[in-house]
């Protein structure tokens, strides 16, 4: 395998792609949204259980996609559980900036979380794959806003 391919498909991605965490339904979710990437037909649903204090108590996803989109959804659920909705929104913006080659805005606030997500930064060199990596996050943002449908087009 060549180096640029290894940048894209890092071991963590292959692992999360094969064994996604939190791929399940949350029966008593109080937010959810359905996301779709019309280009490849990938579909994904994000479920959220948010407490009265605005803290995300549980987050999960369902759906099947490529290794990149599955790994991204899986990693997302790991980093946003325990965050408030506002923090999750900020993380989304940071992640989006990273995936599209920009700079994170929130400084050091989420250093650990962003560190965990940098395995996905390789997509910035593959324009068509950026949407794979950001689908789960767009869907999360829609779920928070109670927009039940989102597409990455």
């Amino acid at each position, binding site marked *: 395998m*060549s180096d640029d391919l290894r940048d894209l498909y890092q071991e963590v991605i*292959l692992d999360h792609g*094969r064994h996604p965490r939190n791929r399940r339904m949350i029966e008593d979710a109080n937010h959810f949204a359905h996301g779709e990437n019309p280009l*490849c*037909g*990938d579909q994904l649903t994000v479920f959220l259980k948010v407490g009265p204090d605005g803290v995300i108590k549980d987050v999960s996803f369902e759906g*099947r*996609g490529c*290794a990149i989109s599955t790994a991204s959804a899986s990693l997302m659920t790991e980093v946003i559980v325990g965050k408030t909705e506002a923090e999750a929104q900020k993380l989304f913006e940071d992640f989006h900036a990273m995936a599209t080659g920009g700079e994170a805005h929130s400084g050091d606030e989420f250093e650990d979380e962003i560190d965990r997500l940098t395995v996905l930064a390789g997509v910035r060199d593959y324009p068509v*794959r950026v949407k794979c990596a950001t689908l789960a996050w767009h869907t999360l943002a829609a779920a928070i806003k109670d927009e039940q449908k989102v597409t990455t087009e």
Partner: protein
Amino acid sequence: MIITRTEADTVAGIESARADFPILSRPVRGRPLVYLDSGASAQKPQVVIDAESTVYSTQYANIHRGLYYLSERATEAYEAARRTVQRFLNAKHAHEIIFTRNTTEAINLVAASYGRKFLEPGDEIVLTGFEHHSNIVPWQLLREERGVVIKVAPVSDNGEVPLEAITGLFGPRTRLVSVAHMSNVLGTILPVAEIVRAAHAVGARVLVDGAQAVSHLPVDVQALDVDFYAFSGHKIYGPSGIGALYGREDLLNAMPPYQGGGDMIATVRFEKSTWAPLPHKFEAGPPAIAQGPALAAALDYVSGIGMARIARHEADLLEYATRQLSAVEGVHIVGTAPEKGAVISFVIDDVHPHDIAQILDNAGVAIRAGHHCAQPLMQRFDLPATARASFGLYNNRADVDALVAAVRKVKEMFGA
């Protein structure tokens, strides 16, 4: 770069054709290009590139308008291209060939012009379950406007649509059958002549979407007795931006214009205008002036090799590729109809087609992954997408070997 082959691997005379395509000697990601996406768009031989460039460098002007030398030359070249398409499809008359932008526009032309004029609410249009979106959506637009009914012949598990699945839908309201000659996903080739015979017997017209078929097999619209036949230049080694619709003279004459503008009129008065005769009635506005002669060059090129010989060469490749890919554990071919053109859709257990295509790209192997503009078909097989290798006259067994080697690498990487 010419990849070496053994004599036995090739149909005589076709092996040198690869050298006619300059792009195939271009390295991609540091490796020789293995181009297996001709079903999406085919590469161009030098004669096509030269033909387009010659128009610009020696005889370019607007056509059908100027009363001067260059315009006459450009017009003549464009009309000569129409005669080349006529010969290629064996149409009876050159004016039965309408130039369009592509297959998509040709189908939309029939839906908008023939459909609006001749189809009534409740009239039925028969499609198959493997149609490309361009042979689905125009009919849905017509359904919204005219209340026509769309019936869909189901696809069997191996990717066939048996004749009876189509004729079984025929009834007193069947007015039009619109089907792909060859599926761009499954490769399935339909028995068009039989479909036409059955359709005509119930008084229905037949439009055939030849986008895939024309580059893989000989097509004779009179022998098939089709009413309409559509194809695109870019999939048959010709330029993008030009395609053609064949329509039977009597039908085209009875149909209203598709778009209005210059070139398609006889006289224009504010009270009433009259239309130009065929084919110009359907060609409003300036056409793809330089692409006409380039399309003719492409058709002359494949005719020079011989469509039957191309078909034999590709049948050999398809057989070889099917055998090699099937031998890889976990690989499943989608579409195994006995009558099949050189397209292989496949999936690999536990690996998404996008990841397959990405890793193949890294090995210099260009294939397509996705729904191939056939979402209803993906649903039918309960797949989000497939990977698809599609072959052209320039491909050879070495390309197949590169494909299979890269597929093995995918499996290795994903532990599939």
